[in-house]
């Protein structure tokens, strides 16, 4: 192994150490030291990633570092092993990079909050867990990171624990994702027990070697694993936790949406793509699921008035893009969109955060407005991020990644999927334009009060260039991923007409939004989708949560106890009956004696 890769373990270990130290001692430290430690650990990780990335680019090829054998029971022997290849390098870069910026941003955003140390402990842990997830060479270790990520999301969403609503949102996030994890676990059980290994490369090789395409076992396994990914990446029907997760602090949303949590599902499918390739029906289903999610979430984003909820639904929608790409086997396109999305979504959230802070925790678009002067960092950051999200042709990174996905869909998925994606692209541009116009351009309502500072501005400033420019990196990016995921690059030559249409889609969306708002300012097209609820929540509430609570309440007294209590009652009654015979009457005693003897005699007289 090459020299820099020896330090691979430090990449997750540094934030983890930071998390541990802060969790144990953070309460007693001043905020400055907490922020410094937390940022430093992630920055160090990021630096290491840069060094290792350079090393990797110089000499491509997976590096595996086995830290220790976790345990070995029979042939079941998962190892704590890390793997650096193109796929994980991309993820690690995004996580540490965006993670560092979010840390930096948070140090100012969260200033003065109760539990500052706790916040950074969890944030560090979040990054560490995600790093473990993406670096894991062993599927069980990946699962460790997976669950830890879920836990951290829970802790951070519910960070302001005094408000019970935040707790509810946090629980919803963890429980919904864990509902997806149950099939995932069963899938893991299936994989481990039928393939006899937990190491990802071995598993994938074994699967390819043993199972023909479309066989029952890989299809089942892939389906089960897909549930986990759906839950984590907030796809239909397990998507409703993500909008609720806005209850957490805004930087957390940035991290969660951009780098750490929701991308895990995409990453899982990308990482295990050879296995999914053996299950075409599952892939098809994923593609269509993505398509529906894309449209539905886009419509939702169009009608939200809370700026963070717009962004949340936008994430769901963008993840739909990625799933569509994964569904048609365009792993590179999906990963590239993930990569780009990480930058612009982080940018959007951080910019929105500045705006929110500047307006004294005002999140309603309709009460914002005129931010160009009042919060220029927010304004320009949001504009850049929005442009990238809307995929303004050539000027933004989002354009290139979206173009890749649409091309892949055109090539492999057929017209219907492409058309849905195109509509989605139009929607995307429309909703973000609407949000920008209402929230940033319209007349001011709420006076600006909040403080700002360089630690808020710097991350925004640093995120603008990649949001706009990383799109040009598509070809080398594809080359980086190929050996890792086993996916092929999409054909470079795309039909002209679809490409043109795809390029026009964002413009169309922007124009539509502009036109509609010009006609009826500050209104939401309510007939398109409900603002708050998708019906899914109501469904879960009525058919899952309430029945479970009713069931629990009914059972609370433990009905199995009743038979035993009945026995106790019975003995009591027997005692009363028998005790009544001991009433002190000599004649009755004598009668019992003689009658008893009569009975006993009768028993032998047969």
């Amino acid at each position: 192994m090459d020299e820099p890769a020896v330090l691979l373990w430090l990449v997750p270990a540094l934030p983890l150490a930071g998390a541990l130290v802060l969790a144990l001692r953070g309460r007693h430290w001043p905020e400055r030291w907490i922020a410094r430690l937390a940022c430093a650990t992630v920055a160090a990780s990021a630096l290491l990633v840069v060094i290792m990335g350079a090393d990797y680019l110089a000499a491509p090829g997976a590096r595996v570092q086995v830290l220790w054998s976790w345990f070995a029971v029979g042939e079941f022997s998962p190892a704590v092993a890390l793997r650096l290849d193109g796929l994980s390098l991309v993820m690690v870069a995004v996580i540490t990079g965006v993670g560092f910026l979010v840390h930096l941003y948070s140090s100012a955003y969260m200033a003065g909050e109760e539990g500052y140390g706790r916040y950074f402990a969890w944030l560090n842990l979040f990054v560490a867990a995600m790093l473990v997830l993406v670096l894991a060479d062993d599927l069980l270790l990946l699962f460790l990171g997976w669950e830890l990520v879920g836990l951290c999301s829970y802790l951070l969403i519910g960070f302001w624990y005094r408000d019970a609503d935040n707790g509810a949102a946090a629980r919803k996030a963890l429980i919904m994702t864990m509902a997806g994890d149950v099939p995932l676990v069963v899938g893991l059980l299936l994989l481990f027990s039928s393939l006899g290994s937990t190491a990802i490369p071995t598993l994938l090789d074994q699967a390819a070697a043993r199972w023909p395409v479309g066989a029952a076992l890989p299809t089942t396994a892939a389906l089960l694993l897909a549930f986990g990914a759906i839950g984590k990446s907030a796809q239909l029907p397990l998507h409703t936790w993500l909008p609720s997760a806005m209850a957490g602090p805004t930087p957390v949303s940035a991290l969660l949406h951009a780098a750490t949590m929701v991308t895990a599902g995409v990453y899982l499918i990308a990482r295990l793509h050879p296995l999914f390739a053996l299950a075409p029906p599952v892939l098809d289903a994923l593609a269509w699921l993505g398509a529906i999610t894309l449209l539905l979430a886009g419509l939702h984003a169009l009608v939200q008035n809370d700026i963070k909820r717009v962004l949340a639904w936008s994430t769901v929608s963008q993840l739909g893009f990625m799933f569509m790409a994964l569904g048609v086997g365009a792993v590179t396109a999906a990963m590239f969109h993930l990569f780009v999305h990480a930058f612009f979504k982080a940018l959007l959230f951080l910019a929105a955060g500045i705006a929110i802070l500047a307006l004294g925790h005002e999140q309603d678009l309709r009460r914002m407005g005129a931010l160009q002067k009042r919060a220029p960092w927010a304004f320009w950051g949001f504009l850049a991020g929005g442009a990238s999200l809307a995929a303004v042709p050539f000027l933004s990174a989002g354009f290139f990644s979206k173009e890749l996905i649409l091309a892949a869909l055109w090539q492999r998925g057929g017209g219907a999927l492409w058309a849905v994606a195109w509509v989605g692209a139009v929607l995307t541009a429309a909703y973000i334009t609407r949000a920008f116009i209402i929230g940033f351009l319209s007349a001011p309502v709420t006076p600006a009060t909040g403080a700002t500072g360089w630690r808020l501005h710097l991350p925004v400033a640093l995120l603008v260039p990649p949001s706009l420019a990383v799109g040009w990196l598509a070809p080398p990016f594809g080359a980086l991923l190929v050996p890792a995921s086993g996916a092929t690059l999409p054909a470079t030559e795309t039909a002209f007409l679809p490409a043109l249409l795809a390029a026009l889609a964002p413009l169309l969306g922007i124009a539509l939004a502009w036109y509609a708002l010009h006609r009826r300012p500050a209104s939401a097209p309510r007939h398109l989708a409900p603002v708050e609820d998708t019906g899914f929540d109501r469904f879960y509430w009525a058919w899952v949560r309430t029945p479970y609570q009713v069931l629990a309440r009914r059972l609370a007294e433990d009905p199995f106890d009743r038979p035993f209590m009945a026995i106790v009652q019975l003995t009591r009654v027997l005692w009363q009956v028998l005790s009544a015979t001991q009433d002190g009457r000599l004649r009755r005693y004598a009668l019992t004696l003689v009658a008893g003897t009569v009975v006993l005699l009768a028993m032998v007289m047969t």
Partner: protein
Amino acid sequence: METDFMFAAALTLIAAVLAVTRANAVHALLYLIVALLGVAVVFASLGAPFAALLQVIIYAGAITVLFVFVVMMLNLGPAAEECERHWQPAGSWLGPGLVGLLLFGELVLIIMHGDAAGADGVVDAKQVGMALFGPYLIVVELASLLLLAGLVVVWHVGQGGIGERR
């Protein structure tokens, strides 16, 4: 022999029933004596003259006299007889009578399975005496202890004036 036995048995049974059912204590005791004498006759008819003699002397004589003394001490007069009638309505005999009958029936069923060989011949006082002071010596000694125990109990319980009405 046969007729002796039958006559004595019938007498005994009738007297026993009356002894148990009378309300007047003295009457009951008299019937008891008759029943005991009847049994003595049966003993004699079974070739146990010594036992018959002891039955007459000790049972019908000594033990019944004890009862009579007690009756005298308690002065059970007509009032007691009335009280007795009150305590003992005819219905109160139903259960006990039934149980007694059942018991008797079971015993008869058991007894009827035995061989019909009867005893003949007499076991006289000498034989019994030889047995008592031969192989049964220890038993006799123990019986004396038993009587001693009875004596001590009666003496202890009876101390402090038996028969003085409260």
